[in-house]
């Protein structure tokens, strides 16, 4: 989908859409020197180290910006409602559900997707561990699991507590219970859970 087409179409919508007419009236409060807000616009993202500028409909989720506009399809759409975790990416180092955020809200942000972690020829340690421990079946939740796992270990290292942390004032340990609780936002219906746990545990052990 060429992004300039999106831009043009949406501009037209702003001008001729019947719902828009009322809205334009509502925008009357903007002074002549400040342009009224638009229904689409330019978004600058650094994705996997590469700076990208996209012309996007405001409604475009970060997930769809990645998948449909940058064709980085490693990040998956499982539910589009924050209920499965398949769309997990890292933004400025933190894992989030890319389906429940708008790309336009991330102007200037750094995004790391599964493609940015490693490649088949040069995999990230977590990717290699998932292969070694068979931490997947159909593979659809896998990129989200891996991105989540990488960021999750950072969260433990940073001392963030979880639901199963016994003592809130002590540093959490990367126990099995901690890893399972913290990975619960990534559903695997094939249920390779024990193998995913084994993969993460191995990577965690190598980090420690």
């Amino acid at each position, binding site marked *: *989908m060429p992004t300039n087409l*999106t831009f043009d*179409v*949406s501009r037209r*919508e702003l001008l001729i*859409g019947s719902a828009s007419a009322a809205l334009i009236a509502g925008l009357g409060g903007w002074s002549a020197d400040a342009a009224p807000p638009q229904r689409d616009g330019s978004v600058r993202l650094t994705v996997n180290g590469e700076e990208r500028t996209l012309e996007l*409909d405001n*409604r*475009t989720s970060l997930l*769809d910006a990645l*998948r*449909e506009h940058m064709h980085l*399809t*490693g*990040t*998956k*759409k*499982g*539910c*589009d*409602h924050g*209920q*499965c975790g*398949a769309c997990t990416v890292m933004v400025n180092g933190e894992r989030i559900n890319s389906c429940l955020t708008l790309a336009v809200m991330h102007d200037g942000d750094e995004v790391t*997707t*599964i*493609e940015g*972690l490693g*490649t*088949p020829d040069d*995999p990230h340690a977590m*990717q*290699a561990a*998932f*292969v070694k421990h*068979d931490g*997947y*079946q*159909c*593979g*659809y*939740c*896998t*990129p989200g699991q891996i991105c989540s796992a990488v960021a999750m270990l950072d969260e433990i290292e940073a001392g963030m507590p979880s639901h*199963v942390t016994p003592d809130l004032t002590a540093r959490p340990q990367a126990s099995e219970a901690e*890893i*399972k*609780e913290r990975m*619960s*936002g*990534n*559903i695997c*219906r*094939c*249920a*390779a*859970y*024990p*193998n995913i*746990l084994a993969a993460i545990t191995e990577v965690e052990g190598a980090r420690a």
Partner: protein
Amino acid sequence: MQFQKPAGPNPTDRQRVLGKPTPRIDGPAKTTGTATYAYEFNDVAPNLAYGYILGAGVAKGRITSMDVAAAKKSAGVLDVVTYKNAGEVKNSDFNTAPLLAGPDVTHYHQAVAMVVAETFEQARAAASLIKVGYQKADGAYELAERKDSASVPKDDADTRTGDYETAFANAPVKVDVTYTTPAHAHAMMEPHATIALWEDGNLTLWSANQMIEWGKQSVATALGLDPSKVRMISPYIGGGFGGKLFIRADAVLAAIGARLTGRPVKVALQRPLVFNNTVHRPATIQRITLGAGEEGKLLAIGHENWSGNLEGGDAEQSPAATRPSYAAANRLAVTKLAVLDLPEGNAMRAPGDAPGSMTIEAAMDELAHELGLDPIELRAINDTQVHPESGKPFSRRKLMDCYREGASRFGWSKRSMEPGKVRDGDEWVGMGVASAIRGAPVMTSAARVSLRGDGSVLVETDMTDIGTGSYTILGQTAAEMLGVPLERVEVRLGDSNFPVSAGSGGQWGATSSTSGVYAACNQLRTAIANAVGVDANAATFADGRVSAGGEAFDLTEAGALTETGEVTFGGRGDEHEYFTFGAHFVELGVNAYTAEIRLRRMLAVCDAGRIFNPTSAKNQVMGGMTMGAGAALLEELVVDPRYGFFANHDLAQYEVPVHADIPQQEVIFLDGEDPLASPMKGSGVGELGICGPSAAIANAVFNATGIRVRDYPITMEKLLPRMPTV
């Protein structure tokens, strides 16, 4: 080739590659985001348009008006597909509910329209502008209400052995219990999705589908096309569990939308639509009757099952779990089907056997308790090496070996015979067991195997890998047969241009598709031997070389060769019964205050003859155990009979197990082979894992609390009224 049993010595006996725990060859692609799923073929055409499906707002009735004017005028919209402009959409034999409604609506969220627009955002927005008027019709939605109207469906005659009624009436010890299981959602992580592209009257669909040939044929039927005009491609499928056995609205509407707009169209079902738009495992009511002697010998077994479906739909075959299970001279199996106006019920992982095992295996536990017997002992007393109905021997049945191995590993002897006796902190602790029994069917399956000039091997078949590990076991099969390392084998799957395979379903995929590759490789071995001039019957293939009679040639010396082979299984004959077996062990805790159930340990000991890749086979069994845990404790599509729909239609409300729910899981396979089953001397295990674990959990809950819940899922409100006060 026609498989002739028993399989004699053959090259798979070497087990250098087959049978070895092997990381998946598709693993690097899946872990790096480079495996391409249906919706992601963005490069196949430069001008992909987006479809967005609107589901019906009523469960049953008629569309009286449909105003698409606002949607058509909405920004970016190319067209709106409805029954008025779609042309005829025929249902193939694989579908019960029409994939496009109009003017009749036969279930909630049935597709009534699809907007095609330049962008996803525009298509979604426009779909909300479509105004549909309905005349609602009364429908039937509750199985319990319609139970008495149920009849025996065609092809599902009762099976009777001996004199069941008299034997049950006279049995000294009886269990007569009725269980219910609710409707379940497949809830695979990838929603149904398709890209459709027309070129010169030929239609190509990149579609998430488990059964490529069925899918191709169904699309051809739906659109009135010659099947030769349809190509379906599905190299990676984000889970199916039966939910992608047959085409759904995405495939047909993408094709129609592309035809109407002259643009390739991509469409994925939005998650809240999936639950009511597609298919589900139907709810059941099951009555189990067990009559036994004082010493535990079963005299009578009855399994009656009621389920519902749309007119013309199939019944859930729960008694399938009981029929091969335990010896008893007098038997009854009854399947009855009521007409319901819910969405279409269809196959979900181990159809029949999964819900059937949830009841027969719990009822056996009830009988054991009644008799004061260890539940494993009760199974031992009633084990049988012949099918209790047909009297034919099982090709292989090591059920009690599985129990013995499991009991020893799990520490079963520590289980309290008396329920409600073991307390650990805030939890009542219990253990449970159940048998796993699942048919081992086979299907005709073909493959094309090529030796390339560089000595590498290419396997092509329309077989799918829905997470099952097909890529790897087919690669292992070719590597073993041709004596090359697995790294030298490339496997291409899921394309209707490839030879027709068994596809992924019914636990037949692994056995059948590897046997198809075996057949093709056998032919290729002959061709290679002929090419280098050695006796094919004496030739051995190892280390990238073919040798015979003291001569050895590098495979590259044979040149490029291709063979297409096919296996058929008529030679299995009808003297044997083919099943896979296992035993599930569960330990869990029930919170004494809140009745929350938390699993502590799970173990499955399984047997299916040779296991082709223990790594992926274990994963499959674990996956079944977890899906079984979901069925036992969490999963229920809640029917709202006023509106005729599944009310909890998203992944926040339909809860499937998460990481934190799943404890240590161990899977053990018995050693051995089943030369009667296939040339591979083994069977698949993709569904064995979900047969039994739910009942083992229910039995462990009883052991922990003394409370028997017969309405799945076992949630806290069903335990609380009978929990001891705190």
